[in-house]
């Protein structure tokens, strides 16, 4: 018999205190910040079918005050929707169709690979804060929020929640998330999530994209026809490496080493390479109608939500 496995971190009982927003970020997750988040809404450019009544235009026709179209009357239609004025002019029966207002499902994907657990400040902690904030924006706009953590080759999906009161459930799901110890295949995780996805809506990927198949992962997620937004999170050490001398750089995920001589020219070349990589990622995202937002992990959460994401039309 194998030794009993430790209980998964997500299953650990969390106290009420730990579930409070202030436990995650006492400086920004205060009451005022939550009120500001409630005034935001994740932008959806296309009408999609929802599950429940909401405040977003649905692809379905239903009952609302906004006129959508006419169709011929068929047996069994509600006579209350007949347009009697047209019948008076044309002596034909037409039914008035109205726009349905439903909710959408907001998908928040958090990369919890080993590389996200590094940096100062911690990129994973930054990602969890950003995920919590965006989830609250979705909950406050009567949308369903589906949270998933990408590790290894799978996307661990949490049950979708709805209503601002479920923010504590979201926080409880996010708090125990730890960076993976092994390598993570981002494309495989994206493919896995895409295969589980049933309802379209805004999809936000929070990741450092340190993966050979990062563009493929973007392609997989964009293929779900969700409105994809990518928060590319990098720490200051990755933006401006404080390296000097002859070094062997060890990958935190794979343990692979790279020998470099870090001098001024090498650091300059790294910066150029980083810029080219970000440009390529942005081009790939734009090509697939996805929003690409590069954010350093030092960026305050309020600046991220109210400045960067607004500027990129991710929230409005």
């Amino acid at each position, binding site marked *: 018999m194998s030794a009993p496995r430790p209980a998964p971190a997500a299953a650990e009982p969390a106290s009420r205190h730990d579930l409070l927003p202030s436990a995650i970020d006492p400086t920004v997750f205060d009451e005022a910040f939550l009120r500001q988040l409630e005034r935001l809404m994740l932008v959806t450019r296309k009408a999609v079918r929802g599950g429940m009544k909401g405040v977003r235009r649905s692809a379905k026709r239903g009952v609302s005050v906004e006129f959508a179209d006419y169709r011929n009357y068929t047996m069994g239609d509600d006579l209350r929707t007949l347009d009697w004025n047209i019948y008076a002019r044309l002596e034909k029966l037409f039914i008035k169709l109205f726009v349905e207002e439903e909710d959408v499902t907001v998908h928040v994907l958090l990369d919890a690979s*080993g*590389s*996200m657990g*590094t*940096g100062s400040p911690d*990129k994973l902690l930054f990602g969890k804060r950003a995920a919590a904030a965006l989830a609250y924006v979705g909950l406050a706009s009567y949308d369903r929020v589906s949270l998933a953590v990408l590790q290894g080759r799978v996307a661990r999906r949490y049950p979708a929640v709805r209503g601002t009161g479920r923010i504590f459930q979201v926080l409880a799901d996010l708090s125990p998330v730890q960076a993976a110890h092994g390598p993570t295949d981002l494309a495989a995780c994206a493919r896995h999530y895409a295969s589980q996805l049933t309802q379209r809506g805004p999809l936000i990927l929070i990741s*450092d994209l*340190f*993966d*050979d198949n990062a563009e493929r992962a973007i392609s997989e997620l964009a293929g779900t026809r969700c409105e994809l937004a990518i928060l590319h999170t990098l*720490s*200051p*050490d*990755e*933006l*401006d*490496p404080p*390296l*000097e*001398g*002859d*070094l*062997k*750089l*060890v*990958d*935190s*995920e*794979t343990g*692979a*080493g*790279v*020998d*470099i*001589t870090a*001098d*001024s*020219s*090498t*650091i300059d*070349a*790294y*910066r150029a*390479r*980083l*810029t080219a*990589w970000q440009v390529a990622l942005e081009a790939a995202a734009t090509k697939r109608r996805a929003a690409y937002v*590069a954010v*350093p992990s*030092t960026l305050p959460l309020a600046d991220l939500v109210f400045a960067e994401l607004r500027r990129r039309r991710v929230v409005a």
Partner: protein
Amino acid sequence: MPLLAPLALAGLVFLPLIVAFYLLRLRRTERTVSSTYLWQQLVRDLEANAPWQRLRRSLLLFLQLLLVAVLVLAAARPFLEHPAGLARDLILVIDASASMGATDVFPDRLTAAKRAAKEVLAGLPADGKVSIVAAAETARVVANEVTDRGRAADLIAGIPLSNASADLGDALKLAGALAARARGAEVLVVTDDASSQVPDVHLAAPVKVITVGRERRNQAIVALAVQTGAGGVKRSLFVSVANLDTQAVTRRLQVLADGAAFTARDLFLDPLTRTDVVIDELPAGAAVVEARLAAVDGSASPADQLTADDAAWAIVPSDRVQRILLVGPGNVYLQNALSLLPNVELYGTSGKDYAATSGLDKFDLIVLDGFLPPTLPDKPILALAPPSTSPLGTVVGTLDGPAIGTISADEPLLHDVDLTRIHIAKAQRIDLPQWARAVIPGPRGAPLLYAGVRDGLVTAVMAFDLHQSDLPLQVAWPILIANLSGELLGRDASTLQPVRPGAPIELLLSPGSGGMRVTAPDGLVTELVPGATGASSVTFVGTGSLGVYRAESIPAAPKPTASGASPNPTPKPTQTPSPGPSGSAGPEAAAFIRFAVDLFDPIESNIAPGDGARLTALGGPPATGSEAGVARDEWWVPVALIVLLLLLVEWTVYERDGARRIRDRLVALLTLQPLRGGRPR
């Protein structure tokens, strides 16, 4: 480009070694990063894993290879040849006299002379030899046929400045002797040529002269003496100041008594004249008087360019009264000479009454004139014509008309004593005792005057009666008595006279002393021990520094006591030196003598530089048939500069990141801007 040490090029094997070190450099510091994704791409971009690509891009490696190559080149000693300007054998004479301390050239003439001498050595042929002679109070060979120019330069740099007058004549004679060893040698003199005296020497070798010095602004104290008035109480100071410049100046003469300022006077000194100053009434009890020349505040007079002659010291003679007992039938010459001695009380008695005389302990000297008591007193004795054999000497007969033998020039008792006109009709023939030295030798080893330390007591014996000689009628008589009293009373007249720098001085040993300990003005202590048992004096030669020297007696070690024998206890001075110590005094001061070393040489103080023509004229014509050598100029100076430059560039390249951060922080501090955590994208 010729090389002196081509084997050093073997050091080029270090070049591939350095390349190998770069290739094999495996020690790297491990650093965990979030992902090596970008770094791997970067390495692929740079093709850094290819060794030769990495080497091609390493500026540090290039600099290090270049540095090693230049160092190897420096070790190989590249040089250029050119015709030498000097002979193969060079005798270099460097004037180190006091006038070379003049500061009319920076920093002084001697340093400039050394610099010029080192520059001249560059013109020495490659196989040339140089001998160096330093001309100070005496000529001294500093280096003999040195072929290493670096060593020669070090030896030149080590030549000290002397406070004495230089004897260029001796130095040129020595240089001539050194030049005579090799054919074609030449003499090069580096001097200020300030002395007006032309050395009386002619050399076979040609003489070249390099002169240093430009100006002649100097004022000097050329005489300083303490004079005692006729009463023996009043003392005055005589100072003579010479202005050796060609323009009038104003100087302040400061006089210090025992280190305390006593008086000061502003002197207007006409050009090329001496000004004498007499200062009356020195402070009572003063032992040392110092005179200084200083600039007058606010005066427009040019600065004095030679400081060695701006200070002088004089020893004030003791004013303690000493008692002398004259025993004999009565001798007016002796009485007059003794009574004329300063600070002396003369008492007299006859031979008959001597036995009844009490209080002999109170006398400092007993003079026995033709008389010998049964028991000699335990006091210093001056005996004249002892009638019989005694511990003072064995009388073996008489001498009729004895002639004076060859006199030692260094005899201190005969200082300034002219014996050429002395005639002696009759004298006692006395064998010279072992404890004595012959001061005035007579015929066949019989001394006419001898002196020494007998059982710890200073004793002098004159073998003839004054009435049998015309000595009392000569000028030499009172001088001889003064010199004798100086030795017998412990009052060495020689220590009152200024001593020339570098000149030896005879220091008389007090009874019971085992030597002298001399403390120089600069604190250097020298212990002098007499070379022979019973010697009455020691010679001190370390008078190179100007100032007041202090000589004190070293107590003699107790003699081992023989069984059954009761050694005669050596009398020791029970009194300590008086609080106001005199220059030289009686028994209590015998353990404590001062003497002053002063320049007092107007010729040396005249620092007007010459053109060296008269020194050049002392040399002979150049030797015919001697081939001009080839001089080599090594390139180590530019090579060393290149090495330093390369090191600087390498350090800058290696530390450029750190240097850039330091610069950024400094700029941020200076402009009060907050430091940025990262580089803005």
